């Protein structure tokens, strides 16, 4: 009995210590999260591959994905992109810049409490299409708009 009590106490204090370490950021939570980064999709070098590896292959065209981009971007390093999905049950939005060295730019997952809306700024290597794909109710949808880029933003 005494032995059990000792074991229980040690375990308890270890757990408390672990909790403390997480709280103080001593254990790098960022590193643990990094495992969630879809490296295969983000390093894919063409549109088809990037879409397949991020789970958006075979997306059906939908005008319910509203895409606000400039017609002409003077600076490809900073292209504003605003996306609103009107597809019910939207759980994620992915932004692709078709002719970038790595076409997948970002994927946003929306949990209850967030609207399927995102506004950000992306880099575009050259004049091409910005494609935005959405996951909703186990299905995938896509919409696209072309942006004329007068100065590319990916260097190289």
């Amino acid at each position, binding site marked *: 009995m005494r032995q059990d009590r000792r074991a229980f106490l040690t375990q308890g204090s270890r757990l408390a210590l672990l909790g403390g370490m997480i709280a103080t950021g001593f254990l790098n939570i960022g590193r643990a999260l990094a495992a969630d980064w879809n490296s295969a999709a983000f390093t894919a070098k063409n549109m088809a591959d990037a879409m397949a590896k991020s789970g958006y292959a075979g997306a059906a065209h939908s005008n319910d994905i509203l895409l606000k981009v400039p017609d002409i971007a003077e600076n490809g390093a900073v292209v504003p992109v605003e996306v609103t999905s009107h597809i019910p049950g939207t759980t994620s939005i992915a932004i692709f810049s078709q002719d970038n060295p790595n076409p997948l730019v970002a994927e946003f997952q929306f949990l209850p409490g*967030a609207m399927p809306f995102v*506004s950000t700024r992306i880099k575009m290597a050259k004049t091409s299409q910005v494609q935005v794909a959405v996951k909703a109710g186990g299905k995938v949808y896509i919409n696209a708009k072309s942006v004329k880029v007068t100065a590319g933003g990916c260097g190289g």
Partner: protein
Amino acid sequence: MAQPIMMRAKLDNGIADVKILIHHPMDTGLMKDPATHQLIPAHFINLVTASLNGKPVMQAQWGIGISKNPYLELKLTGAKAGDTISVSAVDNLGTQFAGQTTLS
């Protein structure tokens, strides 16, 4: 110690409009340093989480295609005055970023 994230949130009819700005080079790993002609190693934020009162509402994965000093705008539903919105991010080198704001 996490690097600061600049945030501003505005409440309108129960929807919180959140604007987020993170100071970061977002180096692609494809650009050469003009002085040394060597490639500048990739250095970019790849994971971002936004939370409302500590509960995650949006999780994003970013690649090298997000612009330098990333800007992000989100809209959160069911928010009310006094609620706390926090954002955390981490880059490919493990540097952490965090910001927080209270709705008024």
